[in-house]
C-alpha cells in the first residue's frame, strides 16, 4: 500500500496497442438473465431440516416454555392444576411470531397456551407475560400491575431486572442468556429452582 515518490517526467515510451474497443460480454448477460429466470421459475419445495440457524426470538420463545420447568408458578397463575398455563405476549414484538407456534405445547402435566396481550388488564389469567421492547415507555406500570397480580414477567428490555422485572434476556455474543430478579419473582408467589438460579447470568435481589 504505497506509492513511490519519485517522479522522472512523463514517459516518451510508446507501444503499438490494439485497436481501441470496449470489451463486451453479451454472452455473460445472457447467462445471467438465464440464471435469473431459473431462479424465478424454480419451485422446489423447501426441505425439512435445511432451515437456517434459529433466530434470536425462536430461542427466546423456547426459553419461555423451558422456564416453566424451573419455576413453580403461584397456584392461581395456573388456570387448572392439570391443564393450562397461559403465556402472554405483550406489545408488538417479534416474539409473537416466534412463540405463537408453541401454542398447544405439552409440558409435564400442562398444556401451554400462547396469547397476545395488548393492555395490562389482559395480562390477568396469564402465568407468564413476555413484555416486548416497544413497551419500554410504560414498563413501570406493567411491572407494577404484574406484581400485584402475581404474574411472572419476562422481557429483553435492557436492565429489565433492575426495573422490577422477573427474568430478563441478555445477549452474550451469539448466545441468549438470562438474568433473574429473585425478589421480583418470589413476590409473585413463584418458587425458582436452584438449577435456574445456577444457570442465570446474574441474580439481582
Amino acid at each position, binding site marked *: 500500500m504505497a506509492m513511490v515518490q519519485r517522479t*522522472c517526467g512523463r514517459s516518451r515510451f510508446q507501444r503499438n496497442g490494439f485497436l481501441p474497443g470496449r470489451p463486451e*460480454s453479451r454472452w*455473460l448477460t445472457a447467462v445471467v438473465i438465464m440464471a435469473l429466470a431459473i*431462479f424465478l421459475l424454480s419451485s422446489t419445495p423447501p426441505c425439512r431440516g435445511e432451515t437456517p440457524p*434459529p433466530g434470536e426470538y425462536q430461542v427466546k420463545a423456547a426459553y419461555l416454555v423451558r422456564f416453566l420447568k424451573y419455576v413453580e408458578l403461584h397456584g392461581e397463575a395456573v388456570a387448572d392444576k392439570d391443564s393450562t398455563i397461559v403465556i402472554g405476549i405483550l406489545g408488538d414484538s417479534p416474539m409473537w411470531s416466534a412463540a405463537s407456534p408453541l401454542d398447544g405445547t405439552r409440558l409435564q402435566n400442562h398444556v401451554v397456551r400462547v396469547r397476545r396481550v395488548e393492555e395490562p388488564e389482559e395480562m390477568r389469567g396469564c402465568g407468564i407475560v413476555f413484555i416486548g421492547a416497544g413497551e419500554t415507555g410504560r414498563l413501570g406500570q406493567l411491572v407494577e400491575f404484574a406484581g400485584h397480580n402475581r404474574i411472572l414477567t419476562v422481557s429483553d428490555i435492557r436492565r429489565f431486572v433492575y426495573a422490577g422485572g422477573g427474568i430478563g434476556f441478555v445477549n*452474550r455474543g451469539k448466545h441468549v442468556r438470562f438474568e433473574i430478579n429473585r425478589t421480583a419473582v418470589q413476590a409473585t408467589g413463584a418458587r425458582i429452582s436452584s438449577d435456574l438460579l445456577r444457570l442465570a447470568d446474574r441474580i439481582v435481589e
Partner: protein
Amino acid sequence: MFSERFHTSLLNGCVSLAVALFFLVSAGSCPAGEIPPADLDTLELEELMQVEVSTVYGASRYEQELSEAPAAVTVVTADDIRKHGYRTLAAILEGVRGFSTTYDRNYHYAGFRGFNRPGDYGTRFLLLVDGIRVNDAVYDAVPLGPDFPLDIDLVDHVEIIPGPSQSVYGSNAFFGVINVVTREGRDLAGGELSASAGSYATYGGRLSYGRKVRGVELLLSGSFTDSEGQDLFFRELDSPQFNNGWSRGNDSLRFGSGFVKATIGDFTLEGIFGRSRKNIPTNPWGTIFNDPRTSTTDTYSLAGLTYQHSFPAGLDILARLSANWYRYRGDYPYASTLVPGSEYVGKDKSAGDWVGGELMLVKELGQRHKLVAGGEFRDNYRQNQSYLDENGLWDDRRTSYNWGVYLQDEYWLLDNLILNIGGRYDYFSTSEGTFNPRIAVIYTPLDGTTLKLLYGQAFRAPNAYELYVNTGSPQSSLREETVRSFEAIVEQKFGARMHGGVDLFLNHMHDIISQDPSRPTETSLPFTNVDEFESRGMELFFRGAWSNGFRAGGSYSLQRTIDAKSDAVLPNAPGQLAKFDAIVPLVTDRIFLGAEQQYTGSRKDLAGGKLPGFWVTNLTLFSQNVISGLELSASVYNLFDRHYAVPGAGEHLLGGLTSIEQDGRTYRFKLTGRF
C-alpha cells in the same frame, strides 16, 4: 486473443457447470444435521444456552443496545453481504450512510462525511478483524478492496462505528472504527465450497471447513481470486504518446488468502494471511503508461491470541496478544533520464511488523455504572522502506512504539438518561503524548425516541511513511493531526419494525497531514500539515424490517467540507450522498432480490475541475433454500452502465490524470455448496 478465448470458454464452462448443478441438485435430498427451530422445544435449558442465534443484531441491523451506543453504529451482517452480493469491504461501506469510497484502479479508499483526501490511504479509520488491528506499521493503511486479507464470505458481521472513537480504540480511530467479526467453526458445521465467475474473466474460489468437536472449535479456509481486468481508456491521455489513451491488459488482479481460527474454552487463536497483486493501468508518478510491469503486491499476515471471560457479577475480561506482518512491493517502470531511450523499473518496498498486547476490563458497578478500563502496547519493531532506481538506493529502517490507557464509564443517571464519558492517553515514541476525551449523552424522553449528543476528540500521529519517505530523516515540521467532532442524533421508532432519524454533525480538523500537490519537488510530493478543515452537514435516515423477510433502508447526506480559512470546498468532497437498499423476498425464505441505489454528488478534483454526480444501481438475486445445501446468487453491478469517474490523487496528476474512470456494468455469478 488466446487468453480471451481461453477465459471465455472457461467462464462458459463454469456457468454451464453451475446451471447443471442447479438442476442436478434440485432433485437432491435434504441435508441432515441442522436443528429446525421446532426442535428447540426438545432442548434443555443448558442446551438452549449453547445455541447460537443467527441474528443477534436483529434483521433490521438495529436493536435497542445499538440505540444506547455512544455513536450511530451500523451493523452489516453476513446475510446482508450475501443478499447484496458485496465483494469487498469498500462495497459494504459504500452502502453505509456518510461513507463514500473511491477506487484508483489500484486501491480502494474510504471517505467519511465529505472528507477523503486523494492520496491518503484510509489512515483515519481503524480496521479490526475480531479486534485484531489490520492497519500496518508503515502506512497505517486500511485495505478495503481485494487486498483485504480475509475472504468476505468469512465475515459474520461488520460493525461500523462512525466518529472519533479515540477514547477507547486509540490512534487511527479518527473518523471511525470498522470491526470485522468472523464466522465461527460451528457456523459451517462441515465443509463449504464456493465458486464465482464474473465480468472481465474474474474467477474466485473458496474452500472452508469448520466444526466444533468436544469443546474445540475450528475453522480453516483458503481462497483465491483471479481477474484479467479490462482494457481502459483514459480520455486525458488520448494522444499517440500514450497509446491514444488506451491501457490494455494492465488491470489484472491476483489474490490468495488463508484463514484459521481455533477456539478452546475462553481462548481463541487465529491467523489471517492475504496476498494481492494488482496491475496498475494508470501511470502514477509519471511512470510509463500502458506498461504491464506497473504493479503493486501487498501481503498481510495477522495473528492473534485472545482470552475472553465473563465472570459472575458482571465482570468481563479481555486480553489479547497480536502481531501483524506487512510486506509491500511496487514496480514502477520509468523512461530513463540518464540514458535516453532506455527504461528502468523502480523497485519500491516496505516491511512493517508489529507485535502488541492489550487488556480490557468491563465491570458493572451497581445498577448504574458500567466501567471500561484498559491499556494496550504496540512495538513496531520493523518499519522499513526502500526505493531502488537508476539514481541509486534509498533505504530507511526504523522502529517505534506506542502505548495507551483508557477509562470509560457508562453512567445511567436516570432510567432514560445515559452519560457516557471516557478518555484515553496515548504516547507515541515518534510524537508527543496526547489525551482525548469523549462525552455522550443518550436520552430517551419518550418511548421509541432517542436523543444522542456526542462530543469526541481524536488525533493521528504521522506514520513512518509520512515521516520518512524520501527524506531519510524525520520531517521535523510534521505534527499530529486532530479532529473535534460534535454530533446530535434524534432517532425515532415507528412501531416495532421501522426507525428513522436525523443526524447533525460538525467536524473540525486541525493540521491534517496531506500531500501537497501544489508544491511538488523534483523527487517527491511532500507531506505537510495543512491548516484547518471543517465538515458540517445533516443526514436523514430510515430503516425497517418486516417478518416476511422484506427490509429496506435509506439515507440522505447533505454536507459541506471546506478549508476553514479560505472557505473553499475541498477536492473529493461530494456535497450530497443518497443511499437506498432493499431486500425483497420473492419466494419466502428462499429467493431474495437485493437492490441498492446510491448517489454521489458532484465533487472537485485536485486540479480544480468538477466531476459530475452519479447514480449507481446494483441488483443481486439470491437463493438459499431452493436447492438443498446450495446458495446461488447472480449480481449485476452498475446496472444502467453509468459512466463516472472519481478524483485522482497527486500521483495521478503527475501522470496527467485528474480523474479515474470507474467500472461500467459488471456481473458476477456465485455458487456456494455445503457438504
